[in-house]
């Protein structure tokens, strides 16, 4: 729920990092916390178990700059990935403006990835939000591991695209982040589909972390334009 405060001239937006357990959601936030100047970010709050697994959420507020005299403040949240924490996950999605799905590239985590993606769609739908209509970005984390499948396999499993039925939107849209690819395209079967932008990541080294954050933040701000 973007909040525009004309008194303090701030735009506040909420971004949620979603995905299976141990996929790297908290690592994304830790990297951002470590790299952003302390003047532009707040404290990193982690509600975690004693073994440092996310119990409720992690939270990091960051300022990304000023547009039209308004400070843009992004509140970044992670959710607990473990299946049995669904009640907590659902609460964190309340009022969300943009979603990042952090997938685990390891082949043995494919089922967990798909289960988490389905859970994301379901939880969003319970709030009346449509994931195909709000800013949504996918990050394939742990791309450095030897047991990672190819990108096309991950895309087929997790980001196959959703159908576009509105004829005014049935035109090719190039993917600004991946050369030669399209975000909106017509399949050989004649069906038009749209996919979420995606990024490869090795969050523990910071690879792909800021590309992902920039992409989702930009999409969120464009919803206000």
């Amino acid at each position, binding site marked *: *729920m*973007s*909040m*525009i*405060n*004309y*008194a303090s001239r701030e*735009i*506040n937006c*909420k971004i949620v990092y979603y995905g299976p357990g141990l996929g790297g959601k908290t690592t994304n936030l830790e990297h951002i916390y470590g790299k952003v100047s302390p003047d532009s970010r*707040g*404290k990193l*709050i982690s*509600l975690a178990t004693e073994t440092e697994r996310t119990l*409720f*959420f992690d*939270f990091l*507020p960051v300022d*990304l*700059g000023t*547009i*039209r005299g*308004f400070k*843009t403040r992004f*509140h970044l949240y992670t959710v607990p990935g473990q299946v049995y924490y669904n*009640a*907590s996950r659902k*609460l*964190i999605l*309340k*009022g*969300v*403006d943009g979603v990042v799905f952090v997938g685990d590239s390891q082949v043995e985590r494919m089922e967990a990835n798909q289960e988490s993606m389905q859970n994301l769609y379901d939880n969003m739908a319970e*709030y009346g*939000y449509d994931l195909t*209509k*709000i*800013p*949504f970005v996918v990050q394939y984390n742990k791309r450095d591991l030897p047991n990672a499948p190819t990108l096309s396999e991950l895309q087929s499993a997790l980001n196959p695209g959703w159908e576009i039925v509105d004829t005014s*939107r049935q035109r090719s849209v190039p993917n600004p982040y991946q050369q030669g690819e399209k975000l909106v395209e017509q399949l050989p079967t004649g069906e038009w589909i749209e996919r979420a932008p995606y990024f490869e990541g090795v969050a523990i080294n910071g690879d792909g972390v800021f590309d992902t954050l*920039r992409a989702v*933040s*930009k*999409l*969120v*701000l*464009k*919803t*206000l*334009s």
Partner: protein
Amino acid sequence: MAVSATIWSFTEDDFAEISRSLERFLSDSNARCALIVDRAGQLVATVGEQPRFDAVAFATLTAADFSANDQLARLIGETEFRSLVHRGEQESIFLADIGRRVILVVLFDIRTTEGMVRLKAKGIIEELERTFAALFERGRDARAKTPGILAGADDEIDRLFQ
């Protein structure tokens, strides 16, 4: 084109009206500080003694606390808990729902009592419910009629992320 789930805004006049209501409440109840936090965890306003802690983090945690308690209420067959109190030896926190839209958070200490805070909060909650209902209603009308706040700022947004 993605669209935001929801957007709401408030003006300097709204802020002044909310602040006036809260200041009157603080004076009547002798509480230290009052904050308004939206249900998504964003800090809307702070009135009274300025908190010595990280107010942004505090707002997020209070919204999460309130949401978690909402779910607890449902589990036991209640629709909601309209208010919560966390009692400390010196400092305490009172939280109350304002029209399912925002949360009133009151920090108070031994200069007053929980009963006094609750008593004086009753009137202010009704007043703030009216204020926020009007504010959200106006926002909905405005969104239907006017372009977004960053309309025409696409180039500026692109530059911000270069």
